């Protein structure tokens, strides 16, 4: 059972590592974005507010996009058809994708985290391991979202179109730039349904307010709930496109 999950995770890691340019981009892009944020926000207090949210947003973004496209290709190049005719189960496949991509998510988080703290001097009152745990929860959600949404895309162009539909609204409404409490009531109401809102709230609590994982039970609960729901949807729809 775990054997098969490792087999698939291992393959995903090799696929990414063999693609040098993707590897460079995975490290460079977050740093470029963090630098832009750092330079464009001269006010320290504002930077402290926005920087943690960038961590949450980037994990959702990269996790979604990378898994979405990988899975799309798994469908379109016919390897999913091969896997579905083999002894691996749908859960092995979802598990393998999670394990493979979360490894990159953790790496990305750590690089970005150290850059924010030591280069951009963002304030930090918390513990790194708690931030990694919380980012992994967001990462799980992102990977399952990517697998699920890939069912609706026929090619890479379509997959990229889902970014403005699924990721951008969350970025604007999650409180990345402006506190949710100061938005019009109906927007607040929408924001309450968006998982990234909880991701941003949670990570701010961990980084700025010196709270621990136990203090943000609600945020973790909501994110885990979304992740579980998406995982079920992803496994149920996984087969689609394998043979039809």
């Amino acid at each position, binding site marked *: 059972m775990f*054997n*098969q999950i490792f*087999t698939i995770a291992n*393959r995903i890691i*090799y*696929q990414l590592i*063999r*693609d040098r340019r993707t590897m460079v981009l995975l490290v460079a892009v977050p740093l470029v974005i963090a630098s832009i944020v750092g330079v464009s926000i001269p006010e320290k207090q504002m930077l402290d507010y926005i920087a943690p949210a960038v961590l949450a947003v980037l994990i959702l973004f990269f996790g979604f996009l990378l898994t979405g496209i990988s899975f799309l290709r798994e469908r379109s*190049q*016919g*390897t999913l*058809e*091969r*896997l*579905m*005719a*083999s*002894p*691996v*189960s749908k859960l092995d496949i979802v598990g393998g994708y999670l394990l493979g991509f979360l490894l990159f998510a953790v790496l990305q988080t750590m690089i970005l985290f150290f850059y924010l703290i030591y280069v951009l001097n963002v304030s930090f009152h918390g513990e790194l391991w708690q931030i990694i745990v919380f980012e992994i929860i967001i990462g799980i959600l992102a990977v399952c979202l990517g697998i699920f949404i890939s069912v609706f895309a026929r090619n890479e162009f379509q997959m990229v179109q889902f970014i403005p539909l699924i990721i951008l609204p969350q970025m604007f409404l999650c409180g990345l730039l402006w506190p949710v409490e100061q938005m019009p009531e109906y927007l607040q109401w929408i924001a309450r349904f968006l998982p990234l809102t909880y991701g941003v709230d949670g990570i701010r609590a961990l980084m700025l307010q010196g709270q621990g994982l136990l203090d943000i039970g609600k945020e973790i609960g909501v994110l885990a709930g979304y992740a579980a729901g998406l995982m079920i949807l992803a496994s149920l729809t996984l087969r689609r496109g*394998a*043979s*039809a």
Partner: protein
Amino acid sequence: MAKRQAATAAVEVDKASFSYKNIKAIDELTLQVPRGISFGLLGPNGAGKTTLIRMLVGLLKPKSGSIRILGQTPSRQTAHLIGYMPQLPSLYTELSVIQNVNFFARVYQMNDKRQRAKRVEEVIRLVDLWQRRQDSVMKLSGGMKQRVSLACAIVHQPPLLFLDEPTVGLDPELRFTFWEHFADLTHQGTTLIVSSHTMDDAAHCDRLIFMRGGGVIAQGTPNELRKATGKADANLEDAFLYYIHREDKSV
């Protein structure tokens, strides 16, 4: 017990049908394939060859009728008994030849590292790509991809192999080597189900069926099918046309 096991056919299809939305791809098809032979599925584009193979490997469930492979309904429990080479080379193009073959070996639970490495090398040499083993699949020619795809399907030495147009895009020499290897496999007791349009492939099969419109229009050994035309010098092409005309008249 052992005797009964041997008696069950490799593939038994009983009045199976399948439709994609409004297209009837397989229409009450009945078929028996004994073990240890190479069995050809011949027919024009759209005859239903791929659909039939997808049903046999368990990717599609018949809408009616029944399917058994090695005495069991196709499912995840029977998956390790079969090898499947899809019509298009379904490979991870950014991975190397050896990484692809090794991945499918692991997917089929060849867990012993030493044995797996040995077998992976063996099949890559068999398809004559050992020199290119470190190359990404995307850098290979069409025929070479086809060969990697075959290697991935046979690496775990399954007793039942489904090959969907395995010889498309191969040069005559390789086509010959492939068929030589297929003959070796059947001698060792493997059952091969091979789809094709070419009568050259058909001549290599122990038995074959002509398919059209999702059904079987004729079956037998290549010789039997040739003889049925009544012409002494008939080839399989003639035989196929003969059956199509005969069917058209009877409708």
